[in-house]
């Protein structure tokens, strides 16, 4: 608790510190490469035959995913708190890479916790983290995925709290993490709003984003929440279908519980133990969802649905072929939803999909699934 209080105070004071904000803005522009483009996917739009589809290109941010927006902010925050070391959990490896990058930039020591199953399916990112000077610590307990990596990260943090900052990678964990991560990611939606107004002279009708913990979705949605006319859909991982252990669709198959210091929707058994999950995408393979998403669902502001593994894989190939953009398997879940939604809407409607990351990291795994030897 004292560490969370310390973090909250440091974060609040950093928000009012003009120098800190200037440094963050400068690095966003010159290091991350923001603003990322809002791209009109004309060929995809034609193929789907309905609403106009725009892609918010977070895949073009430095390190290839939206994760850097938050990791860089928190690395600066760690430096401000005079911590010498940062640690983080990672699922797909994108947050691990982003944290290792932020740590290298700020001269901090960096340890990344990653489940052994995720290390096997995202070996490229494991090597990237090591290149960036981070230590990758294998987590072989529990389901050996993201949830267990967070457990180990939090255990490390409790042990080394005086010298270490925990860079939570998603809008989860105890307060103030969900708020900090949302705020650092909100730049996505702020930019998208400005860009769509420039391109179309009006707000979009629909936003779509994939939801693991939910940081890229919160990042896109946040700036639009007060505009009731903008509909929003969060897409969870349907895995092999909605039966216990086969998916990670918390809203479809979960119930309220407390995990890792957060009250939200969880996949749990009848006694309250956390269930195993499955998704083709490591970044969505998680038993709980950010608490603000739970709030937005209960308030009826955002609709949540899921895409199954095979739907995400088809969307992965579809975007590659129609637009020359290989999306991350996580983001492919959002595209899969657009494939269903766009044809049902008229041609004057506008959809923005958050293309949260690029798919280079997934190429090997997709080849494996397709039975292709590289």
């Amino acid at each position: 608790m004292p560490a969370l209080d310390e973090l909250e105070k440091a974060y609040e004071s950093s928000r009012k510190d003009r120098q800190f904000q200037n440094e963050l803005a400068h690095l966003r522009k010159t290091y991350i490469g923001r603003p990322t483009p809002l791209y009109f996917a004309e060929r995809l739009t034609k193929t789907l035959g309905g609403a106009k589809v725009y892609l918010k290109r977070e895949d073009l941010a430095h390190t290839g995913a939206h994760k850097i927006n938050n990791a860089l902010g928190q690395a600066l925050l760690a430096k401000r708190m005079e911590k010498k070391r940062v640690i983080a959990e990672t699922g797909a490896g994108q947050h691990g890479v982003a944290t290792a990058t932020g740590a290298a930039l700020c001269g901090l020591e960096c340890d990344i916790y990653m489940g052994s199953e995720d290390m096997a399916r995202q070996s490229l990112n494991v090597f990237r983290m090591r290149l960036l000077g981070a230590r990758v610590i294998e987590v072989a307990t529990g389901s050996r995925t993201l949830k267990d990596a967070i457990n180990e990260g939090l255990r490390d943090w409790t042990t080394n709290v005086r010298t270490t900052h925990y860079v939570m990678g998603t809008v989860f964990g105890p307060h103030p993490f969900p708020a900090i991560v949302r705020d650092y990611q909100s730049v996505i939606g702020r930019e998208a709003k400005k860009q769509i107004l420039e391109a179309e002279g009006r707000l979009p009708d629909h936003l779509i984003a994939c939801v693991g913990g939910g940081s890229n979705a919160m990042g896109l949605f946040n700036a639009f929440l007060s505009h009731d006319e903008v509909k929003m859909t969060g897409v969870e991982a349907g895995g092999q279908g909605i039966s216990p252990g086969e998916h990670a669709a918390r809203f479809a198959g979960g119930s309220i519980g407390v995990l890792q210091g957060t009250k939200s929707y969880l996949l749990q058994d009848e006694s309250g133990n956390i269930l195993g999950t499955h998704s083709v995408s490591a970044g969505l393979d998680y038993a709980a969802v950010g608490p603000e998403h739970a709030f937005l669902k209960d308030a009826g502001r955002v609709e949540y649905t899921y895409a199954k593994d095979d739907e995400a894989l088809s969307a992965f190939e579809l975007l590659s072929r129609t637009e020359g953009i290989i999306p991350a398997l996580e983001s492919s879940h959002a595209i899969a939803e657009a494939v269903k939604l766009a044809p049902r809407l008229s041609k004057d409607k506008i959809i923005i999909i958050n293309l949260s990351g690029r798919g280079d990291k997934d190429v090997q795994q997709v080849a494996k699934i397709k039975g292709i030897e590289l």
Partner: protein
Amino acid sequence: MSRIGARFRQILERKGKAFIPYVMAGDPSIGRTRELVRILEECGADIIELGVPFSDPLADGPTIQKAAQRSLAEGVTLGGVIELVSELRTQTQIPIVLMTYYNLILRYGEERFARDAASAGVDGMIIPDLPPDEATNLLRYSRKAGLDLIFLLAPTSTDERIKKVSGASSGFIYYVSITGITGAKLSMDSSIESHIAKIKAGSGKPVAVGFGISTPEEAAAVSRFSDGVIVGSAIVKRSGDMDEELKRYLLSLRSAIR
């Protein structure tokens, strides 16, 4: 006064210190836990802490994580452990505290849990992922049922936290000797002693120390400035040993805690 409160009063009256061993219920079977409770009592335990297995035990190190996995594989649930305590009450009146994580209780239903646990003969609860700030409901139900809620303080706790946690705790206050998880290596800095003295003076409640204590020497050192010593992982590690060997170890701890 609760059974835990009464036990501490007796101990403090004879200027003794409490020995509080921990075992994971259902590791590797409920039958073995029944035997272990008997052995612990024979070897001078004052209060017994029973772990209830949870799939994601954030505050626990590898030893207790593995014990929880074994117990879960046996199908042990919170309801099952409550039932076990109710059976144990036919053989012993030793104070029993359950240590588990909040989601199990939330799922069971907080009000129903407090009622069922208390009427089965559970005396108190340690829930490392539930700070008093979030425990308003459970505190109310527990008080009504006569169940102690034991909250945790650590070397990093500020004066403000100490005040809040001490105020909410009943039975005793659990002082975590290290910043870290159960079973980690104990490395006490000298400030712990004065920190605990401050907590005791401010709260007037007994303070027991746990996390990372495994040898009789460590137990002796910690008992010098606390009211009780909690030993978990080191006992869990030995809980499958031959009974005679386990008893020798427990008795060595018992005689060190004074």
